[in-house]
């Protein structure tokens, strides 16, 4: 092989592994070496399973040599966000509170990925307990963006996004409550899928907000995402919110293109209140879709405004309920920002929470109604590109600083509140070379369309092929 193995996409590596042109041991060896070389600066991993991953790789190599096929991810090194339980290994959720917690079971997604042959390289850093969007972790280090290490990687799945963007692994598992897969995917220039609520099991994942939590894949290409998602998705009797509906074959329809596709745009919201380079990149992406045969349709979602407040209320009340005991018994073990948010969540009224949950029903109904006119919606994933590390405010409109947490949820809340699936796809770069991402939002359980549309875009563009300039 002339090109570095870690520059292969997940799908390319899987094909070469099946033909035994490369070996799992080579992939794991290269990945571990790259993590050792670069991750001291990026802090994307909390735990690396060096010996364990090598053992599994050697076993996979023997099985492959003997003609056994484990599954579509056989021999592929992946990473898991550290709020996903792995039996017998530390699972911290990025917290001091769980710094010595050793689960006695695997999360269902871990079982599925291992059954498909994936090799778990390690557990990735994250915003503490997934309650925040910066991945500035006070206990395990500030995760840094590989495109510019002075910039934030967003979050909460910041470590997973950085590990994929930096080519430490071929794919990673993230979790998304208010945007925690899509936001870091956007600012690190990778693909990330928030599935329909209930499509991927949450069993064994430390909750943030039960009514909005999802688990999804983060990869460099849409094809890789489809491959990994096909393994992760499906009914799980251990998760009471798991959907019984059968899964599609997400790879089968990938090449269907987007001729005749109807793309919904919400005037007065999708392209208002965002930085100019983000607007230009997403508008440019829409032009490409039109050139590919899609049609843009203006759609009025009358009650879209108000979604940020609903998110903040729900995303405060539910975590504060989960953390109620620890917040009283060991408050000093939480980081300052998460502690404040958990305390705030204790003081909101029950009526605030339930009105926010009723608002979700209203917003979902409006989107479901709109899907009679359109096949997908496309909007930015967040209104700005990566901000300097440590900032708690952001400037979107010149001369006005606003709170980062509220601003970062401006577009991701649509899918979080409605339970709809949403795919982040890289669609450009700002003048500083920082990635811009767009969201493709679809009907419930129609991830196949999102993946088909995203794949068509990547087939026509090169944004996903750029590599961050690691020193």
């Amino acid at each position, binding site marked *: 092989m002339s090109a570095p193995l870690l520059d292969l996409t997940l799908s390319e590596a899987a094909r070469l592994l099946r033909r035994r042109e490369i070996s799992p041991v080579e992939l794991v060896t290269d990945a571990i070496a790259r993590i050792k070389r670069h991750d001291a600066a990026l802090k994307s991993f909390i735990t690396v399973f060096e010996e364990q991953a090598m053992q599994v790789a050697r076993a996979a190599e023997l099985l492959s040599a003997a003609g056994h096929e484990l599954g579509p991810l056989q021999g592929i090194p992946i990473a898991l966000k550290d709020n996903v339980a792995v039996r017998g290994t530390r699972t911290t959720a990025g917290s001091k509170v769980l710094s010595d917690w050793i689960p006695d079971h695997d999360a269902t997604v871990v079982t599925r990925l291992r059954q498909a042959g994936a090799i778990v390289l390690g557990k990735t850093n994250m915003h503490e307990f997934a309650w925040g969007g910066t991945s500035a972790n006070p206990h395990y280090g500030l995760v840094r963006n590989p495109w510019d290490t002075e910039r934030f990687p967003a979050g909460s799945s910041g470590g997973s996004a950085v590990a994929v963007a930096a080519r430490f692994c071929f794919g990673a598992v993230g979790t998304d409550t208010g945007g925690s897969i899509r936001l870091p995917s956007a600012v690190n220039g990778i693909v990330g899928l928030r599935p329909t609520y209930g499509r991927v099991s949450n069993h064994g994942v430390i909750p943030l907000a039960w*009514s909005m939590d999802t688990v999804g894949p983060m990869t460099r290409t849409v094809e890789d995402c489809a491959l990994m998602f096909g393994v992760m998705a499906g009914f799980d009797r251990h998760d009471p919110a798991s959907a019984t509906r059968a899964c599609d074959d997400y790879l089968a329809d990938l090449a269907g293109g987007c001729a005749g596709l109807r793309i919904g745009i919400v005037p007065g919201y999708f392209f208002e209140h965002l930085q100019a380079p983000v607007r230009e990149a997403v508008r440019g992406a829409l032009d490409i879709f039109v050139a590919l045969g899609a049609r843009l349709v203006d759609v009025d979602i009358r009650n879209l405004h108000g979604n940020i407040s*609903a998110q903040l209320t729900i995303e405060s009340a539910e975590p504060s309920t989960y953390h109620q005991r620890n917040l009283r018994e060991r408050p000093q073990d939480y980081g300052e920002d998460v502690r404040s948010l958990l305390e705030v969540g204790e003081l909101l009224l029950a009526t605030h929470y339930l009105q926010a949950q009723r608002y979700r029903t209203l917003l979902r109904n409006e989107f479901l109604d709109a899907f009679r006119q359109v096949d997908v919606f496309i909007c930015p994933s967040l209104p700005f590109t990566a901000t300097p590390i440590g900032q708690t405010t952001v400037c979107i409109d010149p001369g006005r600083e606003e709170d980062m947490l509220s601003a970062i949820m401006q577009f991701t809340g649509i899918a979080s509140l409605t339970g709809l699936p949403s795919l982040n796809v890289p669609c450009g770069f700002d003048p500083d070379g920082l990635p811009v991402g767009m969201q493709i939002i679809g009907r419930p359980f129609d991830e196949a369309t999102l993946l088909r549309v995203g794949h068509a875009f990547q087939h026509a563009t090169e944004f996903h092929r750029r590599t961050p300039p690691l020193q």
Partner: protein
Amino acid sequence: MAPDPVYDKHHIALLAAHAGLPLAPERVAAVATILNAWLPDANALSVRMSAPAWQSLMPAVVFMHAAEPGEEGA
């Protein structure tokens, strides 16, 4: 409609005490900043959702997809 109240530190401390979460003064200050930023919008949303047009809407709940007995997963 009356303007939204600004919760001073005394209010916050009292509210937290009622929730069984006694807060030290520096915690009260941190919470007050966030709460005062969020509550006006939360109150506005509550007013909007109380409109007669939305009276029949039920809150979204966790169990959106009922698991059927006998179905096995991973």
